[in-house]
């Protein structure tokens, strides 16, 4: 509509209208026309009262409005035809920009006229699907994304964009609600002071207009730059953030629908909700949102609370939420808002994490071992031992962090001392992932700890057992064989080792205690055993839940037998000398043989365990090598 019509109406006046202006004006005209007359706009005449309302909404003084009416020719013609209407709108724009109300001013390039507090269903209807389409937020791919996000940026002149946006308005039903939901919620978040945000997606879909009042109410709040109808709705959401934050309006609060969306996205990246998304996967994912890298880096810094290079579900939701907020124009905060903290998010809705249960199972088995530890040995030293063992085991820990991350199930373990003690079983991964600060940084202390660790307080030595006949039965050899075979994996000592011994009570505990003096016999071996065993022990639990079930069992076996000292392997050499103490012959022989059988079974189990663990170790090594090569590639060429 028409410059031609305008020309006809206004004599020889050719009224140049830009696309956005055309659109806007036709919209407004349609609004002011009596319903039913939109079919033939050129013929229709805008209803005087609605026109008057519109003009009043432009907040110009009444004199100006009269002037405008006169100038545009309505008075002369007697009604507001399209031509007059358009001229009037142009004049309003001119007046709002400060130009005098004259025909000549129309020739200038003017922003769109601004109207306050307009209510119009059709406009809203027209605006909303357009808005939604225009601002579709689809992280994976959105061709429109650029447009839509440019749109949300302040200070953009959006007029050239409106033509491309109009085709988008046409299919209101096509985008899935799934996609629209986050978008609308993005808007809901950014919309301050508007109550309808939650209802918005549904309502939009049904083309209702509850945003009626508020959106039109935000007309006047627009920036000075003209915007198309789409932007009008957008700017409605970009209401200056001075309005009070209702509960639902807190931009940093995640709503239920948003959370569901985030969870679904998480699932698409990582099927197990209780596991992590590694850094590289998350990086690719968030890069698709087309935010600049420094901002993404900042978002990561904010959301990865435990700084482990991977995102849990809660952290992922927080990060996603921040991305959405940033896309909608919010400045990123300096610190993570309270509502986005992982604890808060977890408490809110997430199911109890699987690893928490794992943690429980660990803590069940561990306290036993802890309590049976020697009281002389402070837990500090045990904690130190752990770090030094990990130091023995791994080299480039940082490289392994992310690798092991995926196999780590225990995440929310508090990182203090308790963390370290728990880690006796889950140490390898945890040392890497969570603050390994006590680790090799103070290398001297580690060596000290190592030395301290190897020195168990030995109970008073038992009288050396004379070799009985039984011992000459090569039981020693047998046990040594066993020990060799199962060295790396032998956790439990032979269950009821040698019951018949009178001075030795049947309880394994005592037998274990007795075994200690024997430990001295092969101190180096013990040490080695302990370290390797530690390795096995440590590497074992983080792997699979299945193994964990076995573990408590073996540890339960082990615990009562464990001496206060940490060296379980002391049982290895200890068992050997234990045997020779037999005084009674046949009865003890039988007992020995049953014990042997049991030991063999235990051996078999442990050998199996060992092989599995070796397999795991191989895999971990492979991954580590892969990471190292990657790191080398990334590193700039060096002279060193």
């Amino acid at each position, binding site marked *: 509509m028409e410059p031609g019509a305008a020309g006809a109406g206004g004599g020889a006046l050719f009224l140049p209208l830009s696309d956005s202006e055309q659109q806007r004006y036709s919209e407004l005209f349609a609004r002011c026309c009596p319903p039913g007359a939109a079919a033939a706009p050129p013929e229709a005449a805008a209803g005087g009262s609605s026109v008057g309302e519109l003009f009043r909404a432009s907040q110009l003084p009444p004199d100006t409005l009269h002037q405008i009416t006169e100038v545009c020719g309505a008075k002369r013609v007697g009604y507001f035809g399209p031509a007059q209407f358009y001229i009037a709108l142009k004049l309003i724009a001119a007046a709002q920009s400060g130009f005098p109300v004259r025909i000549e001013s129309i020739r200038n390039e003017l922003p769109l006229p601004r109207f306050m507090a307009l209510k119009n269903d059709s406009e809203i209807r027209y605006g909303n699907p357009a808005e939604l389409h225009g601002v579709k937020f689809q992280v994976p791919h959105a061709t429109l994304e650029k447009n839509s996000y440019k749109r949300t940026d302040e200070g953009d002149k959006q007029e050239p964009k409106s033509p491309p946006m109009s085709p988008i308005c046409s299919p209101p039903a096509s985008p899935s609600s799934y996609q629209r939901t986050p978008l609308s919620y993005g808007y809901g978040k950014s919309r301050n002071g508007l109550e309808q945000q939650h209802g918005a997606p549904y309502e939009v879909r049904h083309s209702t207009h509850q945003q009626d009042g508020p959106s039109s109410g935000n007309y006047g709040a627009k920036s000075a730059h003209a915007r198309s109808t789409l932007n009008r709705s957008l700017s409605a959401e970009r209401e200056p953030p001075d309005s009070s934050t209702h509960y639902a309006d807190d931009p940093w609060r995640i709503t239920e629908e948003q959370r569901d969306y985030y969870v679904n996205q998480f699932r698409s990246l990582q099927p197990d909700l209780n596991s992590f998304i590694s850094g590289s996967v998350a990086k690719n994912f968030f890069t698709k949102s087309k935010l600049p890298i420094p901002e993404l880096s900042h978002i990561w810094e904010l959301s990865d609370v435990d700084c482990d290079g991977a995102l849990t579900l809660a952290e992922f939701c927080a990060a996603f939420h921040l991305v959405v907020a940033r896309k909608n124009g919010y400045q990123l905060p300096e610190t993570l808002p309270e509502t986005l903290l992982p604890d808060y998010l977890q408490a809110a809705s997430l199911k109890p994490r699987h690893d928490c249960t794992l943690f429980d199972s660990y803590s069940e088995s561990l306290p036993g071992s802890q309590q049976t530890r020697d009281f002389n040995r402070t837990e500090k030293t045990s904690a130190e031992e752990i770090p030094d063992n990990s130091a023995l085991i791994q080299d480039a820990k940082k490289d392994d962090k992310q690798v092991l991350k995926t196999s780590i199930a225990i995440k929310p373990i508090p990182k203090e001392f308790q963390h370290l003690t728990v880690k006796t079983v889950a140490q390898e991964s945890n040392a890497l992932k969570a603050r390994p600060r006590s680790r090799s940084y103070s290398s001297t202390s580690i060596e000290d700890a190592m030395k301290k660790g190897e020195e168990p307080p030995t109970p008073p030595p038992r009288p050396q057992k004379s070799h009985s006949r039984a011992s000459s039965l090569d039981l020693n050899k047998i046990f040594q064989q066993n020990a060799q075979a199962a060295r790396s994996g032998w956790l439990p000592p032979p269950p009821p080792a040698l019951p018949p011994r009178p001075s030795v009570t049947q309880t394994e505990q005592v037998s274990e205690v007795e075994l200690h003096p024997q430990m001295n016999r092969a101190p180096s071996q013990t040490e080695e055993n302990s370290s390797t065993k530690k390795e096995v022990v440590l590497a074992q639990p983080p792997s699979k839940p299945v193994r964990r079930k076995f573990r408590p069992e073996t540890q339960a076996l082990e615990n009562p037998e464990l001496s206060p000292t940490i060296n379980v392997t002391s049982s290895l050499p200890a068992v050997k000398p234990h045997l020779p103490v037999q005084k009674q012959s046949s009865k003890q022989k039988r007992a020995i043989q049953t014990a042997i059988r049991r030991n063999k079974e235990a051996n078999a189990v442990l050998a199996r365990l060992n092989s599995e663990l070796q397999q795991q170790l191989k895999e971990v090594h492979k991954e580590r090598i892969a990471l190292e090569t990657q790191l080398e590639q990334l590193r700039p060429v*060096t002279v060193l």
Partner: protein
Amino acid sequence: MAVCIAVIAKENYPLYIRSVPTENELKFHYTVHTSLDVVDEKISAMGKALVDQRELYLGLLYPTEDYKVYGYVTNSKVKFVMVVDSSNTALRDNEIRSMFRKLHNSYTDIMCNPFYNPGDRIHSKAFDNMVTSMMMQVC
């Protein structure tokens, strides 16, 4: 309280350098640069031994009349250099160590960020805040 803190990459270019803004910052840059020689010397001195056994904290690199320079190397040959005002009440060795440890921790956190490419300059706000807390308060 440090006067200048710098993080130097393995290839001896700075990843992060920040000094108290009052004085001529160029002087600190120069000081840090010259201290790299001392660091390299110390590293090569224990070079034969296993990397793991090498102490991370290098201690006082060299003193001048105005200030002292301390060094710290990580296992990946990333160096932290700290210039401390001599007139300052003598900072104990432990304090310096703890400051380096904090630096190292923050550096590790930066490394964990997948958006950070090793070898880039460091722009992390968290790191900045931590360094600010360690710098001298300029009245």
